[in-house]
């Protein structure tokens, strides 16, 4: 028979876990309500379609919206393949011994470098050395470096969790290494990889400091037409408005945050959908 103490412990544990999760959700709701109440009045089509201005009524987020979307698309297309491939290499092909250890420690270490240091790195390497100047390309490359460790570590962990039985089965049928990797391991590991990608991109879209250093501007009256164009991003415009003395600009900043979070939500939603589909297919 199951003792009452054990039942009590079970109930208490379940309670704590539930409370923990719902409190976190509550915090999110509080945060979002707070922002929504501040900024919803300024949310209209004019706001989304205008460039920066010294008058709050005229100012808009257009440059930032397009800049952020361009930047995210570029960053994703650079960092996801490179990050996933790097993770695949390190897990499946691997480098044995002390060098392998160093690489592993190195990756997690890079995740902890402050974003602003990546900004300084990007300035020196991409803007100055490669001569890309204050462009979307410099910004995207810098952000890619910033978020790659997260993708690599998440990829590695997901691949490690794939049971070897799956691999051996494929080898036993005569598959080559890359058949096994792409056909068997990757699909099973994909949900975990997507989690890493979601977390990484969500972080990237909200970054300000490294982009300021690399050359994202705060005032621009053009939307980017190519990857070498100057740009601004939503968090930058928001930060700029929040620092102005006029109260109207503070509310404008709140409106900007609503737009930013919405874009991020859409991004997340798409990625979660992909993850969900993959997770359904491979369960054991």
């Amino acid at each position, binding site marked *: 028979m*199951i003792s009452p103490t054990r039942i009590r412990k079970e109930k208490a544990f379940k309670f704590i876990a539930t409370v923990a999760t719902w409190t976190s959700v509550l915090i999110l709701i509080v945060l979002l309500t707070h922002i929504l109440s501040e900024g919803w009045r300024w949310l209209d089509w004019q706001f989304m379609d205008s460039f920066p201005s010294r008058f709050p009524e005229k100012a808009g987020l257009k440059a930032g919206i397009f800049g952020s979307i361009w930047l995210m698309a570029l960053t994703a297309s650079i960092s996801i393949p490179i990050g996933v491939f790097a993770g695949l290499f390190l897990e499946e092909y691997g480098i044995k011994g002390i060098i392998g250890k160093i690489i592993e420690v190195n990756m997690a270490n890079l995740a902890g470098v*402050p974003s602003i240091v990546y900004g300084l790195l990007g300035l020196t390497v991409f803007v100055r050395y490669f001569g890309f100047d204050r462009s979307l390309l410099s910004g995207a490359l810098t952000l890619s470096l910033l978020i790659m460790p997260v993708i690599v570590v998440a990829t590695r*962990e997901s691949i490690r969790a*794939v*049971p070897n039985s799956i691999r051996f089965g494929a080898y036993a049928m005569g598959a080559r290494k*890359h058949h096994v990797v792409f056909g068997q391991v990757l699909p099973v590991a994909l949900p975990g990889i997507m989690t890493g990608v979601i977390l990484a991109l969500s972080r990237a879209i909200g970054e300000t*400091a490294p982009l300021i250093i690399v050359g994202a501007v705060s005032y621009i009256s053009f939307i980017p037409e190519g990857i070498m164009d100057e740009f601004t991003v939503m968090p930058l415009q928001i930060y700029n408005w929040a620092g102005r003395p006029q109260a109207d600009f503070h509310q404008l900043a709140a409106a900007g945050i609503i737009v930013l979070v919405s874009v991020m939500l859409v991004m997340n*939603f798409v990625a979660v959908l992909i993850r969900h589909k993959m997770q359904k297919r491979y369960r054991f």
Partner: protein
Amino acid sequence: MIDRKTRVTIIGISIKLVFGVCAFLGILTTIGIIFVLGNEGFQFFRQVPIWDFLTGTEWTPLLEPKSFGVLPLVVGTLQVTIGAGIIAMPLGLLCAVYLSVYAGKKRRNTLKPILEVLSGIPTIVYGFFALTFITPILQKIIPNTEIFNAASGAIVVAIMILPMIASLCDDAFRAIPRSVKDGAFAIGATTNEVVMGIMIPYSLSRILAAFILALSRAIGETMAVTLASGSNPQLTLSPLKSIQTMTAYIVQVSLGDTQAGGIEYLTCFAVGLLLFVMTFMMNLLGQIILTKFRVKSL
């Protein structure tokens, strides 16, 4: 015509090459960072002895008279990072347990993305949130709390890294083969016993990896702590006082009006270098612990 066997071999080798290059980029980045930080950092240490830097208790490089003891910044960073870890690690783990064990499929599929949204809210938003919401609450509970304080920073960073821990641990739990869990239930264990006794130990290495990743992010967090904890480098252990973290200082110098090329500017690189070394040691320690707990796949 190349026969199939050769073609497959070539594909195999080229894939290995491409992947290898990608992995190598990680090393390149580290070298790049060390170069950028080291270059100017070295110039700093030519003017300020390392011992004074590491053990001094007054950090006033932008005030007259100048003092370059970095300890206040280090303590500030540790306060915020360890504080955030103490809050987020258990909470995150509990969330992961709820998501993977107790929540139904529908709940889980809605809650997990919601939690991940928390992680994506821009860091500056958290900074303002700390100032306008968390600090006033803290001030009501503990009257002596200053308008900028380490505790607000720690709380807000904890909120930021919690989804990371929750999501990654949830993935870890879901990857545990059913046979392992079913075996425990079959002998009559309660759910919490399965979690504590089987699931967590089995996934310990993955959980620890999540912790290390989250703590790494916490230590490198910039804008949120700059806004929440302040720009006042003072050596104090009280979480209610205004402090400055190493990252907040780097932001202050890089984006402020400091003279280009002066020693004040160089301090930014020296602090960055120290932070890099600290993160490296923390990760090294984590890796050693990780290897001890890694479970071989079935």
